């Protein structure tokens, strides 16, 4: 199968987590699976709860759309010892969107996915 034959991915859901994980193992410059079970469980549970997340091409967004890529930098050992409680990531998201930490989900307001 060539890349041209693959249907474009327009959304990701809980069922896609194993595929994403496999791809991450392949493409990541460094990889370790310590703590992987927790990460997979958490992401799967969140996606199952909130349904799928739409994927949007950058050129399909309005010019004035505010975008942010959230990431985590830190020691994997420290993260494994103090797992996330679910309080960290809403903060920058809320700050960027001008809402409260428990409020808006900017990604859910993105326009529907376009066909590449």
């Amino acid at each position, binding site marked *: 199968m060539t890349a041209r034959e693959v249907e474009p991915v327009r959304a990701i859901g809980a069922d896609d987590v194993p595929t994403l994980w496999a791809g991450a193992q392949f493409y990541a410059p460094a990889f370790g699976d*310590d*703590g992987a*079970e*927790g990460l*997979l*469980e*958490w992401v799967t*549970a*969140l996606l199952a709860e909130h349904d799928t997340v739409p994927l949007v091409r950058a050129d399909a967004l309005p010019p004035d759309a505010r975008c942010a890529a959230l990431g985590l*930098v*830190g*020691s*994997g*050992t*420290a993260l*494994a*010892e*103090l*797992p*996330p*409680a*679910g*309080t960290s990531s809403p903060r920058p998201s809320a700050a960027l969107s001008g809402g409260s930490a428990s409020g808006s989900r900017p990604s859910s307001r993105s326009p529907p996915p376009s066909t590449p």
Partner: protein
Amino acid sequence: MLVGVRWGPDGCSAVLLSDSRVLAAARAPGHGRTVLTRVLADVYGAHAAAVRHVTFVIGPALLAAVREPADGPGQGAGEGAARAVPVVAVRIAPWPARHPALARHPSAPIAGLVARSVTLPGGHDLLGRELATLDEARVGELADELAASGVRAVAVAACGSLAAPAHERTFGERLLAAVPGLRISLSHEFGGQDLAGREASAVLNAALADVAEEVLGACEAAAGRVVPRAQHGVARGDGGRTPLARARTLPVVAVGAAEAAALLGAARLAGLERCRVLLPGPDGALLGEVRSGVPLVPPADLALIGTALCPPMAWVDEVVQVKDARELAAVRRDAEQRTIAMVTAQGAAPGSARLVETTVVALPFSPAGTIRVHLRAVGEAAAPDAAPDGSGVGDERAAGRSGVGGQRAREAGEAPAARRAGEGRGARAAKGAPGGRRLRRSG
């Protein structure tokens, strides 16, 4: 002469080893004291007086109990009625998880053993600095509440407890005062630099107490009857062996031992001192690494050979902060001495302990001078006369932990069983010497 005995899903089996030769093998369907006695008697024959050590693999029996429903038939336990008991999991962390998926254990088999999860404010960082104060009033309330609930087993896991176990101990002591005789597992007793892993170890240890008591009781009775003068030990998930009496209090160390022993047995067959092992199996291939040399023996049951060969073993895994190379050298020397002392506590002959693995690496994304030290040591099993009941002594007493400062994560010397507990994580066996992970077959 050495003997390896397995309490497996399809019955009990044993091999008798002398130097590098398999002298006898026996197998019988069923479980329990009578079956074990018969298998041991068959394999010993005329050699009983020459047997120095008997090592049992009970991991499959323990895992079978985990897979069974609490009120189902006790196939794993064999002759008795022991079952895995529901556990109350108490997590001590600076803040409670906001989502149920973050609050429960990520491994489904472990989560299935937990009847209730509670979070108490508290915990430390990797270097033992307090992140949140333990709320004494809340500790007392929860202890009284659990006492009134009739709980039988409690697992306590606090952030940073390897470096500072005070919060786990405080809650454990308060709970024990409220419920005398309650089975309480504290995660710092098991080691492993990750909270979920230690929590799994603590949950399994608490849940399997009854099953382990029954299985080990049968093992002890059979060995005591057939070879009373030999040392009686239990194979651990990290490829080492521990005195049978110690396995009664920390049964979780026996989980995963069959896989580790199979790697050790394969290395012995290949006659390699250091090798990687790939073994086919019904549930996929077992991949692992062995780092201790063993001589060649004729083909036989790899796991049983490995079981007979399991050496006394201990390891240290800790995070420390040092100012310079001189301090690092002192930390490493101290860790080496403690690891060697712990091997002796596990039944090694004095003077026989040696380091087989040393890793000292800087912890990334951490303050300068933060170092993770991982050491592993093995020894030759002491003569039975040194500990005729095979009981040995506890790690903590013999290893002299008092030499360790407060600003570091302490060692455990036991297998991080969480890594292989149940099916999810359990598909991966222990890492190290020997150790490995199970590869799932594709397609």
